[in-house]
């Protein structure tokens, strides 16, 4: 089973790298429950004019490889740059009129 690893720099989406890594038994323990889904591959929805919505099995880590605090299985990552909860979305894209479409 492949578990996607997402590296998010604390500054936001500019530091986001998506990377597939083999991880049989390599998950760190604390967030195990969130990382042990039914083997569903990670899927990323680029929400029009909004965040990146990530579902399935993945790890979310900082640039040092340490897992970021995470309390839910599915997360929305900021891509407008305005969130105060980066790397997570806080809905700010609506206030600044962020457009992902031309």
């Amino acid at each position, binding site marked *: 089973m492949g578990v996607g690893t997402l590296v998010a720099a604390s500054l936001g989406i500019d530091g986001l790298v998506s990377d597939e890594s083999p991880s049989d038994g390599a998950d760190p323990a604390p967030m195990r429950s969130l990382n042990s889904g039914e083997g569903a591959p990670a899927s990323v929805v680029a929400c029009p004019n909004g965040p990146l*919505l990530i579902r399935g099995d993945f790890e979310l880590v900082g640039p040092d490889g340490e897992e970021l605090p995470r309390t839910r299985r599915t*997360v929305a990552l900021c891509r407008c740059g305005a969130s105060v909860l980066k790397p*997570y*979305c806080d809905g700010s894209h609506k206030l600044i009129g962020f457009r992902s479409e031309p």
Partner: protein
Amino acid sequence: MKQPSPRGDISALVLAVISGTAESQQEPLARLDRLVESAVAATADILHDDDLQLALFCQYELHYSGIDEAGDDWEWNPDLLRVRHRIEAALEARVRDEVVLGSLPEATSEAVCQELFRMTGEDSGPSMSRFVAKSATEEQLREFLVHKSIYQLKEADPHTWVIPRLAGRSKAAMVEIQADEYGNGLPARMHSALFARTMRSLGMDDTYGAYLDAAPAITLAVNNLMSLFGLNRRLRGAVVGHLAAYEMTSSQPNRLYSRGFKRHGYGEDATEYFDEHVEADAVHEQIAGRDMAGGLVESDPRLLQDVLFGAAAGLAVDTLMTVHIMEAWESGRSSLRPSESMAS
């Protein structure tokens, strides 16, 4: 839930009837039916009618936590249900009058999602969240929690009724959202539990229904609308639209609410409920718009109008509650029912 104080002949009779046995209540039920028939025709505005809203709230409550002294058999008593139908038909008609839908989008997931974001992004009147962030007094924070407590202590429950009526993508999305609302297996993380913690940190009673007597008709109407949508399968599109609208109007207001409590020196015990919603609902609104509401419409395009109606209805009735609260606060009055003191 403990029995609330009646607000007129009809709510008094409902509470009296459900305290007895069905066999002993045939005559009072017949009287109740006649009273309600004339009251729904005569009311100036059912959304602000304390007696009818409380009567309906109590009848719906039989499906949730029940009411002290009321036998469980009343939940499906056909004579009481007939009375309930009269009130909820009048409520639905009133809300349909209030709501004007624009031109319908295509019945695709993305078009429905975009339309819901458009509707929820429109300026809908006074902003309670900005006021709470900047100006609300400590007493007004408590009032704000009283209004919210009627729903938030059972947060997510009215929408959960619809789950078995959905299928596929829409159902999976709804369950994904509701699982988060219910704490992902951790009782202390349930949103209703986080809200109870906020109330306790302000020295308030977190018992479900403790402040029901203080809640004005319009606050009960906000709740009755959700139960109306949630308990009627024919309105499954509306309850899905209603939840989507709630998720889409949550992140930013909750950030501001949190700021209001911090301004008065309250810590994480009080603010975590709001802070949690900023992040959670930024996720939920995407799932709700695209997969839950959009997915439902794609699987059954006939529900397009109902989904948008449910969203618009939720926004409209919530706006009326906000107007009620802000008008009271701006003129230096309490927004709660006058007889109630806010014991803390």
